[in-house]
C-alpha cells in the first residue's frame, strides 16, 4: 500500500516537472513570436520618435542617479581591493589596468544591466501589466490602435537605446572612482595609472566587446520586461508576480549571456 502511494506521488511530481518544462518552452516560443511581431511593427515607435524619447527618459534618464552612484562606488571598491592584492606582487602601478579592464569588460555591462533590470525593467513590466489590468490595452484595441506598436515597441527601443549608454556611464564613473581612490587617496602614481591603463585596454577587444555585451543585455532585459508585462495576469497579484519574474529572469539571463559572450569574445577568439 505504501509503495503504491509513493509511486503515485513520484509520478505526480514528475508530471508536474514535465508540465513546467513544456510550458516554459512553450512560453519561450510565444515570447519569441512576440519579439518578432514587436520588431516588425516598430514603425510607429521609430516614426513618432517622441514616443520612444519619452521612454528613453523613463528608462535611461531616471536611472542615471543609481547608475552613476553605483559605478562610482564599484570603481572605488575595485581600487581599494585591487591595491591590496597588487601591492603584494609589487604591481600596484597596474591598478589602473585592473580597474579599467574589470569595468569595461565585465562589471560595466553586467552590473549596469542588473541595476537596469531591477529599476527600469520592473517599472516597464508593472506599467504594461497595470495597463492590461485596467483595460487600457483593450480600450486601445477597441479604438483600432495596435497596443504593441503604440505602447510596447517604444518601451522596447527606449530600453535598448538606454542600456549601452548606461553601461558606458557606469564604466566611466567607475574608472573615475578608481582614480579617486587609487591616485588621490592611496597615492598610486597618476601617470602610471593612466598610461598603463591605456596600454592595456584595447579599443576593439575590450571596449567594443563591452559595448556589444551591453547591447545584448539591453535587448534581453527589455524583451523580458515588455513580454512579462504584456503576458501578466490582469490582477494585482498577477502584476506583482510578473514584476518579480522580470527581475529574476533578467538577472539570470544577464549572467548566463555574460558567460557565453565572455567565452566567445575573450577566450575562444584569442586562441593561438
Amino acid at each position: 500500500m505504501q509503495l503504491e502511494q509513493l509511486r503515485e506521488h513520484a509520478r505526480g511530481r514528475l508530471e508536474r516537472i514535465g508540465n513546467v518544462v513544456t510550458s516554459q518552452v512553450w512560453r519561450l516560443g510565444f515570447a519569441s513570436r512576440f519579439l518578432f511581431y514587436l520588431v516588425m511593427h516598430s514603425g510607429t515607435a521609430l516614426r513618432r520618435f517622441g514616443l520612444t524619447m519619452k521612454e528613453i527618459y523613463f528608462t535611461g534618464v531616471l536611472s542615471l542617479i543609481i547608475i552613476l552612484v553605483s559605478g562610482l562606488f564599484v570603481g572605488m571598491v575595485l581600487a581599494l581591493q585591487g591595491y591590496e592584492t597588487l601591492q603584494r606582487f609589487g604591481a600596484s602601478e597596474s591598478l589602473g589596468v585592473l580597474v579599467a579592464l574589470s569595468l569595461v569588460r565585465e562589471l560595466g555591462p553586467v552590473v549596469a544591466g542588473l541595476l537596469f533590470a531591477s529599476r527600469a525593467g520592473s517599472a516597464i513590466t508593472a506599467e504594461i501589466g497595470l495597463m492590461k489590468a485596467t483595460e487600457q490595452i483593450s480600450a486601445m484595441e477597441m479604438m483600432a490602435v495596435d497596443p504593441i506598436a503604440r505602447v510596447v515597441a517604444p518601451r522596447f527601443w527606449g530600453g535598448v537605446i538606454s542600456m549601452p549608454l548606461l553601461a558606458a556611464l557606469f564604466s566611466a564613473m567607475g574608472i573615475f572612482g578608481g582614480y579617486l581612490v587609487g591616485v588621490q587617496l592611496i597615492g598610486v602614481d597618476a601617470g602610471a595609472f593612466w598610461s598603463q591603463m591605456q596600454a592595456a585596454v584595447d579599443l576593439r577587444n575590450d571596449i567594443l566587446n563591452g559595448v556589444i555585451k551591453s547591447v545584448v543585455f539591453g535587448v534581453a532585459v527589455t524583451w523580458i520586461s515588455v513580454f512579462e508585462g504584456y503576458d501578466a495576469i490582469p490582477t494585482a497579484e498577477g502584476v506583482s508576480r510578473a514584476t518579480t519574474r522580470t527581475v529574476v529572469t533578467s538577472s539570470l539571463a544577464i549572467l548566463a549571456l555574460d558567460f557565453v559572450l565572455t567565452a566567445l569574445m575573450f577566450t575562444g577568439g584569442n586562441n593561438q
Partner: protein
Amino acid sequence: MNRSTIDLWVGVFVVLGLGALLFLALKVGNLGSFNTNETYQVQARFANIGGLKVRAPIKSAGVVVGRVADIRFDNESYEALVSMNLDAFYQFPRDTTAKILTSGILGEQYIGLEAGGDGVMLKGGDRVRLTQSAVVLENLISQFLFNKAAETKEPAK
C-alpha cells in the same frame, strides 16, 4: 512633464552617454595607436613562441611598432609561423632579428626587433630570417641543473 523638458533631459542623457563612450575610447583605451595606420605584413618562424599571443605588441628599442596578426603551426618544418603587422611608418633592414621577449618578470610576451645593417628594407610579404625563440622555463631549469651537475663532477675528477 512636458515635451520640451523630456527632450532636454534625453538629449543630456545621450550626450553624457556618448561622452562616456568617448572617454573610454580615448583616455582609457589605446585609440590612435594602431587602429588607423597603414601596415605591412612580414612573417617569421620560431622554434618556440612560448606565451606569445595574437595582438601582442612588436617593439623595437622599447617602442611599439606593430602587432602580431596571426600565429600558425607549420606542419612541414614543425615550427611556429608568426605573421606581424608593422606600421608602414617604420622601415626595417632585411637582416633584422626578431626575438620573443618577456616584459618584466611575470609580464606578457612580445616580439622585439633588433635592426641589422642591411641596406635593403623589409617589405610586405617578406620573411624575417633571424629569429630567437622564447625562453622556456623547463629548458632553462634543466640546463641549470646540468651545468650544476657538470660543475660538481669536475672537482671529483
